[in-house]
């Protein structure tokens, strides 16, 4: 990141170039930028990218799907500072290799998640209804999401999200929650980029917790396959015998 004219933005530094005055403290999904950049990197050269733990997980999701060649991406591990960790209610902030920054431990709980799950379902629905009513369907959440891989989003398809303008209706957020259930790396980019201030990261965290409870799976590990893409093999099929046969 580099500050120019009072704005902080990502910066590309070529080999041999003086990096100058760069900053590493701004939360920014560099993997989203990398995924836009990658198709243009036709010269076969390598790219190094500053990766926090969530970026590292996002990269794993990319490698898993064969989107990036692993040997062309070099990770520069960045440990998040306390403020960043607090903002993301991040439980897992330390990258596998720390090149920059001081490692700090993660947070165990997300206060809003706890508060929501302590509510009655009616209250919880009222909460989300209030939040989703603010949505103006700007697609910032999907555009800035590092693991939304599609160019054209299913949420733009009128079959699933009515073309009635804004707000887009519940299906928009439910479908997005489902799509991210096996790949969200909890970077919090959706929440940060939401101009309406919807606590989208909290919804991600709620679904992630359920998903982990059900399938013992968390996204961001290159070696594991999403349970949504495996069969029940290896799992007990007992108790599902047809009465007739």
């Amino acid at each position, binding site marked *: 990141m580099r500050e120019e004219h009072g704005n902080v933005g990502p910066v590309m530094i070529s080999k041999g170039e003086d990096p100058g005055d760069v900053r590493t403290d701004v939360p920014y999904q560099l993997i989203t930028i990398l995924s836009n950049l990658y198709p243009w990197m036709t010269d076969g050269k390598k790219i190094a990218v500053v990766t926090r733990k969530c970026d590292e997980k996002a990269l794993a999701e990319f490698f898993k799907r064969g989107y990036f060649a692993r040997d062309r991406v070099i990770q520069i591990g960045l440990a998040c500072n306390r403020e960043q960790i607090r903002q993301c209610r991040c439980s897992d902030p330390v990258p596998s290799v720390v090149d920059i920054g001081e490692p700090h431990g993660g947070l165990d709980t997300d206060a809003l998640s706890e508060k929501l799950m302590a509510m009655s*379902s009616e209250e919880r*629905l009222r909460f989300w209804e209030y939040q*989703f009513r603010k949505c103006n369907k700007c697609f910032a959440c999907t555009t800035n999401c590092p693991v939304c891989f599609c160019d054209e989003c*299913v949420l733009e398809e009128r079959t699933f999200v009515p073309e009635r303008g804004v707000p887009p209706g519940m*299906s928009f957020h*439910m*479908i997005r929650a489902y799509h991210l259930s096996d790949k969200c790396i909890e970077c919090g980019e959706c929440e940060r980029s939401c101009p309406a201030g919807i606590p989208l990261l909290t919804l991600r965290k709620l*679904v992630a917790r359920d998903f982990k409870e059900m399938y013992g799976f968390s996204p961001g590990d290159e070696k594991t396959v999403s*349970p949504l893409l495996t069969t029940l093999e290896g799992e007990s099929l007992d108790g599902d*015998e047809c009465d007739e046969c």
Partner: protein
Amino acid sequence: MTEFKPTILAFCCNWCSYAGADLAGVSRLQMPPNVHVVRVMCSASVKPEYVMKAISQGIDGVLVLGCHVGDCHYMTGNHRTAKRMPVVQKILKDIGLNEKRVRLDWVSAAEGEKFQKVIVDFVDEVAKLGPNPLKEVRF
């Protein structure tokens, strides 16, 4: 006050549950007229998006019926359904809807009586939950 009659959408796979529904019909097994069956080839083709679309538009309950695990016409199709639908249910719960509004069950082509039982139970359960609150949340 009139008794609440839920509107229910059911996805039935062509090979087992749709045939089971047909058998229930041939056997004249009586059930409440709230369930509307959409035929698909396999329960694995039921996009969770359909379920969420229906629920968010105010449908009171969605049933997904497939072949018994191990009996899928397409070998492992229903394994995927068995994995996906619980996620849908959890998302419903997380946003404050009752996860019982979505049910996944298995009905074979020979189980007309089971089909009837599933329909009667589910209609009863959804009726008890009351109208889908999203019916009023049409934004």
